[in-house]
Structure formats: structure tokens, C-alpha cells
């Protein structure tokens, strides 16, 4: 087994430029977690089913377990850690706030992926219907909550975002 040649990857993550030498088969999820220590991006299934690893790639929600790190070269990534970049202790993004308020989480393992799925959705659907919310969430698995409170959290977030 030969060691694969390394490729250089330059990628902006949460507004900061990173440059790393990586194996071509390194998944974006592993790159984020192990190379950049951004462990908020979780891995639940490793093959695109659960949505736990969702991040934004140039503003679009993608599954980081289905993308190689090299594919992100020259692009812009936002992870859950990027939602509250200034890190003020209580300053949560309205979406995060809504998940806390509506108890849209239990073990929390699915939460980052769900939040990242919803960020572009809420930008495109400032007044989502319940059906649209369910459709947006249909690719994310949560084993703990039964989804009810997640849907409520999205409604709450949409309202806060609308009324600022």
C-alpha cells in the first residue's frame, strides 16, 4: 500500500483562510474535524443519509461526508462554529436561540447539521409553511426528538429573523 501523493488545499472556513497538504481521499468532514479541529461538524452515517455533517459550501448546504477536502479547494465553507463568529457568551444566532427555546434538541448530535441545513433554507424561505419546513428537514435524521420541536424551532426562528 503506497502512501497517496498529497495535494495542497486552500480553503476559507468561517472567514479564515487555511492551507493544508492532504491526501486526495480525505473527506471534507474529516478535514474539518481532524485538520482544523472544528469538531462541531458531526459524522453520523458516513454516507450521506443522516445530514449530521452538513456544512455550507459557498452558501449552499452540503454533506461534508460526501465531498473530498480537495474539492473544497478555493471555496468558502461555513461550519456551525461560524454561526456565532464573535463568540460572545450569550450571543446566539436567532436559529440557535430558537432551537434552545423550543427544545429542538436532546443529545445534540444531529443539531449542527440541522442548523446548517436551515441557514440557506430560511434565507430563501423567510415565511416557510410547515410543509416547506418538513421538506427542508426531510434529509436530516434525529433519533431523539421526534422532530416536533425541531419544526417548532424553525417556525420560531423564521419569526425572529423576520421581525429582527
Amino acid at each position, binding site marked *: *500500500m503506497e502512501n497517496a501523493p498529497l495535494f495542497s488545499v486552500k480553503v476559507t472556513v468561517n472567514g479564515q483562510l487555511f492551507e493544508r497538504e492532504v491526501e486526495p*481521499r480525505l473527506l471534507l468532514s474529516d478535514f474539518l*474535524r*481532524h485538520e482544523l*479541529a*472544528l*469538531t*462541531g*461538524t*458531526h*459524522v*453520523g*452515517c*458516513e*454516507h*450521506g*443519509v*443522516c445530514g*449530521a455533517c452538513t456544512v455550507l459550501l459557498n452558501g449552499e448546504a452540503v454533506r461534508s461526508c460526501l465531498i473530498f477536502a480537495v474539492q473544497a479547494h478555493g471555496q468558502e465553507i461555513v*461550519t*456551525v*462554529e461560524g*454561526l*456565532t463568529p464573535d463568540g460572545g457568551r450569550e450571543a*446566539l*444566532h436567532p*436559529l*440557535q*436561540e430558537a*432551537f*434552545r*427555546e423550543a*427544545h429542538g*434538541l*436532546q*443529545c*445534540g*448530535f*444531529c*443539531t*449542527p447539521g440541522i*442548523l446548517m441545513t436551515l441557514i440557506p433554507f430560511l434565507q430563501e424561505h423567510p415565511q416557510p409553511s*410547515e410543509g416547506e419546513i*418538513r421538506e427542508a*428537514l*426531510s434529509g*436530516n*435524521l*434525529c*433519533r*431523539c*426528538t*421526534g*422532530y*416536533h*420541536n*425541531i*419544526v417548532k424551532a424553525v417556525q420560531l426562528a423564521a419569526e425572529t429573523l423576520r421581525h429582527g
Partner: protein
Amino acid sequence: MSHYDATHHTRGTSRYVGDLPEPEGLCHAAIVPSPLAHGKLVRLDSAAALALPEVIAVITAGDIPGENQIGPLIQDEELLASETVHFSGQPLAIVVAETPELARRAAGMIRPEIVLLPIITDPREAFDRGEIIGATRQFVLGNVESAWAACDVVVEGRCDIGGQEHVYLETQGARALPGEGDAIKLYSSTQSPYVVQRSVAKVLGVPYHLIEVDVKRIGGGFGGKEDQATPWACLAALACRLTGRPVELILSRHDDLLMTGKRHAYSSDFKIGLDKTGKILAYAVRHYQNAGASADLSPAILERTLFHSTNAYYIPNVHIFAASCRTNIPPATAFRGFGGPQGMFVIESAIAKAAEALGIPREEIQRRNLIREGQEFPYGQQAERARAEATWEKADALYDLAAIHRKIEQYNRDHYETKKGLAVMPICFGISFTATFMNQGSALVHIYTDGSVSISTGAVEMGQGISSKLANITARTLGIGESRIKVESTNTTRIANMSPSAASATTDLCGGAAIRACEEILARLRRLAARELQLGDETAITIENEQVRYQGQATGWSWRKLVETAYFSRISLSAHAFYATPNIYFDKQKEKGRPFNYHVYGTAILEATVDCLRGTYDIDAVKIVHDLGRPLNAVVDLGQIEGGLAQGLGWMTVEDLQFDHTGKLLAGALANYKLPEVYFMPEDLQVNFLENDDNPNAPYGSKAVGEPPLLYGLGVFFALRNAARAFRPGKTLSFHAPMTPERLLLELYGDQMPPDERQSAEGNGKTRQPFPDTSTKEKA
């Protein structure tokens, strides 16, 4: 009141095992699984793997310094197979390498040589061959044999209930760090830090105190990490000991599915006798539990099946038989409900069949036989504060059962290919570990001089919200704000010999201990305040909103002042306290006792619509009245109810866990195992609590909430079945769960398939006479 971890969860800063900062020299382990379900292991050639430059070690059974044994109840489970393999996926060896990818690649290069032995996957077959784990058990009340004659109708039937994969979203894993000498510190995704501690110590041949286990939180458990988190922690520790380096072992989802046990599948025979008014006079049942390859927790789970075999009903004559049957699938394990749901599914099926024979609605029989105050369960305990009827009546009053009935009948008259079905699901679940000795909990409370508080208990946060409840209980008992409380990780050096976080009992046990620890410190503080402020009656001193009061009046002392004064007066601001549930016992010789501290009751009404041409369906509504005592945190509890319900509904419908006849799991990835997703849940979900009913047996009048709500999910099976009956009224339908769309079509049209296809589709259930001594009469 939000979830204690909500801020960290939403920021992505909550740490699970795999998120901990990597220590210098961390290496990774991967497992070599058995490709066959039963056989003699003749050779394990690891030369090719070891030849890779970055492979550090290949570890097999022979390398284990202590005992190669991790069976929790019965010593029948090796950590690494030495001579015989008993299930497909059983760990044979581990590879330790510099990266997880390399470890996995190298593990794939190790080819075991195994001589195949006969494989059993069916519990009835195992039973017939004498492959029984532990003793068979029987609970008896009254005398069924003499009761059958008095019945107007007696029916028999068979149930086949599938297993269920836990799908905790965080897979199993552990990280082991070498300490001084033989000491090892472990971070483990486990519900049972103490079980991990003692198993690791045994495998390594060291005293328990050299092994420290720390759990901050886990990404879901549902019972799947009660006992089955242990092997991975043991393997990580073993690799750590043998290589001297920190080792992480996190299962890939594929390995997790392949190697870990699931909820038990059961096959059961029932016989039920009633008078013509629908009163149940006698019930006999034989449960064959598919335990898998080793005992794991199966005997304890079997016991709960016995306990819950009559659900929320009083039946004067009962005979329950149950056997744990050894087969060649991964050892089945704890899963929310712990064997109770299977027992309850069978009595609900028996009632359904009896209702069909009597020509009355199922609910009439259910309602008529709900257990009342003072009536006896088959295990000798009497119903105290029985709320089966109260929850049923409240559900009826709130949701109007008759109106739902009328609506559904009207719908079914108006529609041909789609039909609606209704089911009511009353539940009754006993709270306590059925192994009485496990009903103990400890708490360690420290108050720091700035007035902030740290609390440690044996409870593991797995999403259920125990941290929120402990923070709440501690703050409430001390009379201070919740923001002052920090709930610590669960650690074996702070809390010794803890029971697993399981059996829905964690709040009762650890919360009970937390109250005592706080009260101990409070007593010291009151004595101090009485002395310093010259107050005569120290019992009249209270702390409310962080202010010290005497006979309700402010004293001018704040919490902070009180704590500081205590410190300078050399009064201990720490306490360790212990709680053991009083007044519970069980005599296994007689199979009678008072095993439960109390029962949780509830009633759900479920409605579903079936497309009878396609077999697809929607769960339209689930309406619940749940007996929660006086909730500690209604938001958290509601979350538990909805999440538990989702798992119960999923188990009964879309979660189709299958092994083929060679013992191979047919779902090796999440892509082939369907879980409830956001569309699956009913849009009309209503949960109401039975209000103002304190429970004197748990912290602040609350009741346990973890497992009982799952049981409501059973109702959906009967709602779907009723819809199918509306479509084909004369057709005999089986009691085979889950009711996948495929199964539903088979139920509706199986009799129209050619006989050979029907046979293979319906399984080859050998006909047998489970209750051969008496005849069955169906007169209705």
C-alpha cells in the same frame, strides 16, 4: 427551561468522545470481525497487516493480560473470540495504527480461517434444541387451567415481533489514555461508566481503582450503550495497555450496525379467555426471546417481559412462560422499554383477536379490564395510585373517542381504496431496576466560596435532559438560582459503583441522592446561621431566592454571605449522599414481590390512513394523556414523550431489522435501515398530562419518563390493522410486526399469491400446539 446543554449543542461546542482534543501520540484501532455466524476459528493470519509500516500492533485473544470475558450477567461472552465464533461481526482481533483509515485498511487484510458450524437464527428452533440462556421463567396468578371452562370465548394466536436498531446518532466509541504505572483513563460513550470500569479492570487484570472512566455526555444511547459500550472501551484500554500509547476506537456506522446488539425479536403464543361481556378471565402466554449469541442483559430483559405481559390490565388467572433463546446473531441488548414492549404487544394482540371473535371493538375489552386500585399484578404487587382508568377517561373526555369512531366509520363508508383505522393504547410501566440491588444512586455536591455549586452524580447525560433536571433539583433544594449550578461529567473517581443510566430511574435515584446531599449541607448552614444570627429555631431558617430567611422574614444574609461565613467558620461545604429506593423486593423463587417503586400510566389514541392498494400509510394523529406526576421540567419531559413515541412508532412500522438464515444482517448501512424522518410523524400530535397527581416516591412529586412513552407506539400497529380490516373484513390478519407497507400488502393480498410464494413470504412458522392440553373454542 431549556436543555442544560442547549447553548453548547447549538454552537457545536459540546464535546463527544471523538471531539476531545487529540493527545500527543494518539493512535487508532479498528476491529477484525468474524465473517461467519458460527464456526471454529482455526487461523488468523495477521502477517500482511503487520507488515504495513504504520501498523503498530495486531491484538488477539491470546494477548489479553487478564480475563477474556465481558459477560455482564453470565460469563459467556469473550472480548475477542479465541476458539469459536458465535455471530457474524464478532470481534476477532484489533489493529492499532497511526490513523483510523490505516487501521481499517489493515484490519481488512486479516483473513480469518473459520470452519463453519450449524447456524440458528430462529428462537423457536433454538428453544427446541435446548439452546436456552439461564432458566426459563414462569409467573402465575390464579389458575388458568380451571378458568378456561368458565370462558364464553377462548382464542389462541401467535405473534412475531421484530428487533430494532438503536441508531444512536453518535456511534460507539472510547478513548484510552495511559496513566502512571498500570492506570488508564477512559473517555467512553457509555450509559454505564462503572460497568466499563470493572470490565476493563477484569480484562487487564488490575484493581478497579486503576481504571478511571469519564463521560461528559453521549450522542444518544436508548439502551444500546448500557452494556454494549463496554467491549469498545475494553478494546481501546487493551490496546493502550499493550502499546503504551493513547488509543481511540470509534466504530464506523457500518461496524456499529454489524457488531452491536439490537432490541430483541420475540416470537410468542397466546391464549386468552373472556366472558361474553368482554371481561378477561384467563390469559396464557409463551414468549421465545431471540437473545442472540450470548446472554448480555437478555435474562433481565426477559424478566421485564414477564412483568409487563398483562400491560395495564387486571386478569385474575394468568400463566406467563418465557425463555431466552440462544441464536447466532449479535447479542441482543437493552433498548428503551427493556423487554416490556414485547410483552405488551402480545396481550394487545390477544385482545384484538378476542374482540374479533366477540364482534366488539377492541377498546371495549381494553376499557373493561383496566387495572384498578388494589388489584394484583401477576408478580404479586398491588396497583397503588392506579391511574389507568383516570388517563383513559381524561383521554376520552379531551379527545372524544366516540366522535373519532364516527368520523372514521364515515370516512371508511365514503372511501374505497383508502381506509382509516383507530386504536387506543393504554400503558402501564413499572419503575425501578428489576434487579433490586441496582436501585441505588449517589451524588457529590461541592459549594465553592463564591456561592457557585458543582454537582456530580452517577447519571449520564444522553440527551434525556438529566443535567437539566439535576440542575433544577439542586437549585431548588438549596434555594438558589440554576445559573449557579454546574453539572459535572460522570466520573468513576467521584462516584463509585454507580448503576447504569437506564430503567427510566436515573432522576429518581441520582436526583434523590442530590436532594440528600444538598440537605446535608443545608442542615450545617442552618445551624451556623442560627448560631451567628442568634435565631432560636434553626428549622425555621430557609433559603429562598438566595436570601436567608427566618420564619419567612428576611435576615439580611445572602447565599453568598452564608457560604463565606461557613468557610471561615471551618464548616464543610461538600457532601456525598446516597439514595436507595425503599420498600422494593422480589423473590425469584416464588416469582412474587414488590419490584417497582411505582407505575407510570397513560393512554394514547392513534389514527392512521392506509392506502389499501399500495400498502402505504400515514399516521394521522396521536393523542396522549400521560401520567407524569408533577413534572420537574415539562419541556424536557414532553421531548422525551415525543421522542419515545417516535421510536415506538418506527419499531412497529418502518424499522425492518432482518437477518438472513446465515445470520447476516441485511442492513449494513443507514441507507438500508429506515428510520422515522420528519414526514413520518403525525401532524396532529397532542400530549396532555394527568394533572396535579403528585408521586410521593420520586423527587418533588415527579415521575420517570424515559421509557413509558415508547409504548404508545405499539398502538399504531393495531390502527393499521383495523384499517386493513375495514378494507377486507373477512380476512384473517396476522400479528407480525413491524407492519411495513410490504407486510401490509401481504396481509391484504397474501391469500391471493401462489402457495409457494406465500410460504416464503410469510415465513415457515412450523405449526405447533403451544397449549396442547386444552381445546380452543371460538363461539361468539
